[in-house]
């Protein structure tokens, strides 16, 4: 049986592609870094891969709003195949494949309307806006996967430490009915919390003032996942800001970072679905 294949997009200001690809490789998947232009031109095909990744960065310098110009291009670009890229994305989801966006990639998915993806006609429903502090901030946060989260890509109830590095990461949901649906359908995929796992609105635990301390969203299929924190920056134990102290307390700590364990979970899930597909 073939292995899990991840496509890591790059180009136009995306800049976390290296560590994103490393995450999949270390998690046991194959990963290719592909420039978006090659996807548009048909040189590379999305459908050869099981997981499509929109890494972090500053696409188009964040001009006109983070992720906006990238999303605009993704939406309106006609691919060499005659299909638009946006149609390809929808078909990708319909075929049961996975789409993951981190930071700037999350911002683009939200702008495209793929997250939270509630409306029958895909359109932007929520926004990731300026942090309440008004500043870009790099800090490590605790986050927890809510027990009611419906996406199989995340281990329910798991607690993670991840760095956040953004200026526009506050989830803003303008309409009451959208808020209700997000909660009812279990689309919140990560929440900022205290070290013990208690959800809190308090800064800097919640670094940006996000609604419901929400750090990640999934869509009703559970196949699309977007998050502000950067699990791909915590592949190694030695990335954590407290690793020296932890090593002193536990000299046999393993080298794996919590981000890598999340990617392993994702890859395992996909491997299992591939396996099921083969059997059926």
């Amino acid at each position: 049986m073939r292995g899990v294949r991840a496509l890591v997009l790059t180009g136009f200001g995306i800049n976390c592609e290296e560590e994103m690809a490393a995450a999949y490789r270390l998690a046991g998947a194959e990963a290719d870094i592909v420039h978006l232009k090659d996807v548009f031109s048909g040189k590379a095909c999305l459908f050869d891969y099981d997981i499509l990744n929109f890494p972090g960065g500053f696409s188009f310098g964040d001009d006109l709003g983070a992720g906006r110009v990238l999303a605009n291009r993704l939406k309106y670009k006609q691919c060499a195949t005659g299909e638009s890229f946006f149609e390809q994305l929808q078909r990708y989801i319909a075929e049961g494949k996975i789409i993951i966006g981190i930071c700037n990639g999350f911002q683009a998915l939200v702008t495209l309307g793929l997250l939270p993806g509630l409306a029958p006609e895909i359109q932007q429903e929520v926004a990731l806006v300026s942090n309440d502090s008004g500043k870009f901030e790099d800090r490590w946060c605790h986050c927890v996967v809510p027990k009611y989260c419906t996406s199989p890509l995340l281990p329910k109830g798991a607690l993670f430490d991840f760095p956040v590095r953004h200026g526009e990461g506050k989830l803003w949901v303008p309409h009451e009915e959208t808020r209700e649906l997000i909660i009812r359908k279990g689309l919140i995929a990560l929440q900022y919390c205290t070290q013990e796992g208690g959800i809190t609105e308090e800064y800097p635990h919640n670094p940006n003032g996000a609604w419901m301390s929400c750090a990640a969203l999934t869509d009703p299929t559970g196949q699309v996942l977007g998050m502000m924190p950067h699990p791909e920056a915590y592949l190694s134990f030695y990335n954590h800001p407290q690793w020296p102290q932890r090593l002193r307390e536990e000299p046999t700590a393993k080298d794996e970072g919590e981000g890598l364990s999340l990617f392993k979970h994702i890859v395992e899930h996909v491997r299992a679905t591939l396996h099921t597909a083969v059997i059926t």
Partner: protein
Amino acid sequence: MSLVDVDPFVVTLMPAQDYFQAEGVRIEEKAQKFLGIKTGRVTVAKRLIFQNLWELKQVEHFAREVLSEGGIYQACIGGCDLKARYHTWVVVGKRPGVTDDEGATAQKAFNDFLGNEHAAVEQGVFTQTIYGFENALDEAALKKLACELLGNPMVHDFAYNAKQTQAPLCAELPSEKVGVVSLEISDEALQTLSKERHWVFSLEEMKAIQAHFREGALRSMRDALGMPEGPTDCELEILAQTWSEHCKHKEFNALIRYYDKDTDTHREINSLFKTKIAGSTALIQERLKENGHDWLLKVFSDNAGVVRVAENLLFTWKVETHNTPSALDPYGGAITGVLGCNRDAVGTGVGGARPLFNTNVLCFAEPTYDKPLLQGQLHPARILEGVVEGIMDGGNKMGIPTVNGSIVFDERFCGKPLVFCGTGALMPEYLNDQNTWEKRLDPGDWIIMAGGRVGKDGIHGATLSSVEADAELPLGMVQIGSPATQKFLFDFMEEALRMGLIKTSTDNGAGGLSSSIGELAELTNGAEVHLERVPLKYLGLSPWEVFLSESQERMTIAIEPKNWKALKHLADEFEVEVSHIGAFTDTGYLDIQHKSKRVAYLDLEFLHDGVPQKKLCAEWAKPNVQEPKSIVVSDYNSVLLKLLGAYNICSKEDVIRRYDHEVKGRSVVKPLMGMNGEAPQDAAVIRLSHEGYEGLAVSNGILPRYGDIDAYAMSAGAFDEAVRQIIAVGGALPDLLQEDCPFWTVNDNFCVPDSVYDEQGNPDGKYKLAQLVRMCDALYDMALAYNIPMTSGKDSMKNDFRAGDVKISVPPTVLYSMVSKVKDVRKITTSEFKAPGDLIYLLGETYDELGGSEFYKLFDELGANVPQVRPERAIALYKRMAQAHDKRLITSCHDLSDGGLAVGLCESAFGGGLGASIKWNASGLSPQAVLFSESHSRFLVSVNPKRKEAFERLMEGRFTFLGEVIKEHRLSITVKNEKLIDLELAKLLEAWKGGLVL
């Protein structure tokens, strides 16, 4: 140039009423804090101006579908009644000719929306920002807000409460004229001419050029070519740029007569650069070779030096200053400084190195500076804010982690700040079977310009960076950085190099094409350029401006002609503009043409070697400084609290968090460790890859205030500071006799005030030059003692600010930035205490060296006993330290510097969230020296009690046992049986964290 009325389509994006706009809140707070203006609620709206290139219907559709951001903004098309919403407002737009990146991106997005291909065209979409205020502000207040908070008159145009929308347009008529300049004029007229044209030639240099153009052979050749007898404006501009202090380092290459008044001795130094900097490195290079070490590949040539890190892996890096641009436009100066260092690294060798990290060191006056500002002088708080934002965007938007840095405060930086930016990059040693670090070039290779278009920005940057700043500096000097453009460019270059399409490349920085092509032309001995092929942002540039412009984000690439088609195709795919603008030749001349007409024809030998050597005088006399009589301290607790809040010591968290130090996912030691970021570190450590455990340690050493006592001690101390930071985390000095001799690479950066004696203008010039000589003496001595080579460096010689009769000069400053290899990042030691019960030791010796200390500064004293470096003792200790790290005998290690032992103890305690109980009956030292002396080459370490014996055996004779780490959050220090410090950690932390809040 001014705003011109046009009739464009205008889209105003107003934020939705219920949308909380953090940007507005910050502006409201800053207006109150910095300017004392109560604005009331501030709303920020964006305006896009579409110059009549499209149909209104299309614009409307685009605004509704794309620009409204899912309801955050309401898009108003055409008129927008601002008066109905605000009492008063300011519209901020870019000045004509200044890059409007966001407009360019909007144009791309609009084309995407319409399904158009991306043709490289002139810009037709521009942006403005509208700041609306709840309160009715008068025009004076609006103007103050506009010029001091919302924008910079050097970069922006402002309109106050304006109803009419105006779009920027470069209204000047094309001027392609070539001027001819007669040099057959009086000496006085020559000097005036040089000043008026911003050439910054000395009279001697003008006369050398005059003599050159008088040569008979040259005259007849020019005649035959149809060139005028006298030089063209383009030729003089090229000479001015090439001969500038920035490019030729004339003072570092000067013949200096040095007189030591104290000993009544003379000596002569024929080029500080050649004898001291390159001189010491050449000796070290020899020693390395003799012992079979071949990691030092390239020094002092190309854009940056190169060392070998591992098999088929090279490291290159450059640290440079961007002081004058940052004094004029802090944001623009800093961001272009960062992006320029990126290009230096990426333009080394054949090009295409992958940036790995940024580092930066900033020198400002205190943000609380309250003296009246001189004309053209920006307030230090504003400079700080702008520079930090520039460094943030320059690093974050390129995806390069800013791994560490430092901020130094001294009032004398209030005229010109010092902004040191650095970028380190990795490249394979071989690509397509050829080594990557040597530039290869042959006559007939084509010259390609890649990246941004050329405008009037940054003209005269090279020449004017070496004059004192004043309000008269021309606006054209300001450059605007565009990280997005540069990221596109680097992605393209990496791929083109991989495909073997690029033969060599170099960066367009100071001096633009003139500098990049002029320098590469030396390799083949000639170049021919056709300026009409250079793509322009707008019309109206004369040929010399095209050649000299410092428009950013451009690289000069050399290719074999057969690769042009493939390169162009690839560039189109990456949306990068490339232009074939000429070829390298072997004629011996720089041949610059515009529409087939020669605008410059310069003998390369004269261009590069014709500048006459400067002759300068230096005179040293030890400054008359004394130790203070006695400082009476009744309460050491309050002194320590004050010291922790001092600008040079306090936490820089507010700054550090603005920089992404995690991107690339390989950071091991970050600037602040601990979940709450309360553990400041010494050197930064990053892994080379995600798979292996080899890494690099990066450090910076800078100590300007010691120079007031002795510039030699200052320079030596800064060198040692950078070395010991790397030793502290676990690095090892180069050991020539060992097979495994880790590489070290240093960038030295000198920033000094005008050091050329002038009876009227600079009466203490000889003393200042002597300080520079002594700084270089120290560099030489330290480098040879430690066997640590310089690989690149830079000097910035005129860090003065003048307004009328007032001159503000920076203290002479040198920054040593160092990188060395870390064999195994898992064995790294960080600065914070790790566990209660661990034993605390001081390694190295403490002397009564409070001269220039932060402690004395609290009492407005300078002192005389400036810390000295004792290299032999330091080396012996550093070698043992490396063994201790390797054997994991040390649990925490922090190098002692500003504030001495007391501050070091606090910092180690903060990070671990643990207290310490210290007792030291130091003999022969005063309590003040014990607590606050800043003696070099010392470390505060903690040791697991289980390793006590092994540690003490290894460190025999070099350690002092101080006490132990305690669980209680409390620091107590007892000196000679007297408890001098006894404070709760929370109180200390509050003081340390409260020092600098942005």
